[in-house]
């Protein structure tokens, strides 16, 4: 058993599942999407990204790329949330909410790809 793989796999899968949890629900309904959940997704995603630093193999590079994409989209979503609620003062209108959720959906896709790569690499190693 490779301990590093366990921790790594844990964070990658946790990032995916949390992201899915946030994404779930009616798209433009603010009561279906919790701000704390978004916060957790971002934190776990960032940890997963850091864990991917330094791997010199080809697959390591692709994994890092997917993680960076997810980070980018999630941070964009959080920034938009903050802007809407605190700076422009428009509040969480259905327009704003659906933009945020669709960004989170993009990040979800990146996380799915990341997990697929992780699983297939493990499978190929066992073949």
């Amino acid at each position, binding site marked *: 058993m*490779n301990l590093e793989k366990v921790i790594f796999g844990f964070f990658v899968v946790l990032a995916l599942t949390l992201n899915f949890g946030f994404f779930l629900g009616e798209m433009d309904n603010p009561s279906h999407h919790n701000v704390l959940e978004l916060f957790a997704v971002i934190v776990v995603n960032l940890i997963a990204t*850091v864990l991917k630093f330094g*791997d010199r*193999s080809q697959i*390591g590079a692709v994994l890092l790329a997917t993680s960076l994409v997810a980070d980018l989209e999630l941070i964009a979503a959080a920034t938009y949330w903050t802007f809407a609620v605190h700076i422009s003062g428009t509040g969480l209108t259905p327009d704003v909410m659906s933009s945020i959720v669709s960004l989170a959906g993009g990040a979800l896709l990146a996380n799915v790809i990341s997990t697929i790569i992780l699983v297939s690499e493990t499978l190929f*190693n066992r073949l």
Partner: protein
Amino acid sequence: MVASTVDLSRVTFIVMREMRGPLIALLVVYSISIVGMVFIPGIQVDGEVQYMSVFHAFYFMTYTATTTGFGEIPIKFSDAQRFWAIICLYVSVVTWLYAIGSIIRLFQNNFLLRAISEWQFSRGVRRIQTPFVIVCGFGDTGSVLLRGLSDYGMPAVVIDNSEERIKALQLRNYKVATPGFCGDASIPKHLLEAGLKRANCKAVIAITNNEEVNLKVSALARLLNPEVGIISMSKVEVFEETLATLGGEVHIVDPFKTFAKVLAAAMHNPGFYSFNNWLVRDRGATLDRYITPPVGTWIVCGYGRMGHEVNRVLSKYGIKTAVIDPHDSKEEEHIDQYIVGRTTSKTLSKAGIEDAVGILSGTDDDGHNLGILLNARYFNKNLFTIVRQNRHVNEVAFRATEVDMIMQPTLVASRKILFLLIAPLLKTFFRYLLENKPGRQEEMEPIIHRLREKVGRQTPHLITIDFTREKSKAIIQWLDEGKKVYLGDLTRDPRGREKKLDLVVFVIKSGDQEIVLPPEDYEIQENDQLLFCGTGLSHRLFNATINSEYKLFYIQNGVYKPRSHVARWLVKKMNKRGV
């Protein structure tokens, strides 16, 4: 390449020369028609005579000459213009037909087609970036050889003088590029076009069915490129002497001599014949059944090249032989009984078929060979049989006879050439196994046992590994750091190091030194060459190990190398080697 640019310029030159007439005719007809159209007055609009502009005249001619006919554009024509249009139409359409006819005739010109195919061929050759070989002759031997090379991933350039065979080549589904060219391989220009002087040309293989062409190709190849390896098929001894003196790396492949060597090995080393057949992936070959030719009186039917070689081997082992051949032979030093005549039941009885232990049916006629076999079995059911199969198309018939040894010259030659190219160290290994030294025979048994255990019924893969910077970067990186790599570690399974990979290492070549069956604690050096036999999966896993620093670390230490910065920092902090 000089050769290819010459050909390209030849193509353009031919096209330009042939198209000169039609182009000039078109130009003249167009310009006269356009000038006419511009100067002929049109209809009057608002009391003013309209003239066509040059642009409109050209537009009109464009659709008229090509028989498109959009009508009278931009305005209605006057009758004078219409009259001129009739003339223009007929003349220009005829000119066009003439031009198109010339183009079609040009592309039916064999000379031009040849020049184009030569140009395409040399372009195909130039696209090959990896090491490749030039194969001269694409018959039965070439066909088997190319299949083998394709499986191994080595591109080949083919020259054959038969257009049909080159067309057949283009329809094969090889995994690598195999540009083919129809032409005489013994013409220097063709060899140059095939890339003889290119740095990645590894070898020239002369396997046409003409001995003299083979000799000429070999000599030319040596003259034009002193570095290139030469493999030539030859069945004539006079030529072999010439070939041997060419210098550099020259291999002469004589299928009959090769078979004789294998037969001799089978005589004193029972496992060898099966082992060899299994290694070359002969259909139905297994490691479980050994084939040993019996000692006693043998009958040799057909005293040609094969008869000679087999007789030589048999007499070397003190076996009495009776030869049946239609032609009388002068040299009868090792032959017990020489019967002149065709092999029939009469001559077979005369040769003592009832008391014989073995028979060689080795004429150059497949039907006759099969006939001899059936005839002989009628007299003596327990005969050990060797039969020569000359044509690949008769495969099914020969398989059905269930003889002990089938000798197919094309197959023997192509496999030998293939191994010379992809597993050059196999020769060393065989030489070691067959050396007449005490204990050698017993050494064979554990090797076969291990192969049976590791590979068993799966297809054996003979793999040559070069420990070079490009092909095994992790190993070289490891060696650069001053650390040692042991062969025993490399053969561990990167998925779980307690298990060993399904492979058996045969030979390691380090510098000029060749170590047969190297020990587990052999230290790998840069530029070593390794030959092993294993399963396809073991080859992939071995390649993964020597190219991934993480896998290499694991098989050496049993713990995983930390991949990320965070894990590396933690491991360092905890004073451990890995996770």
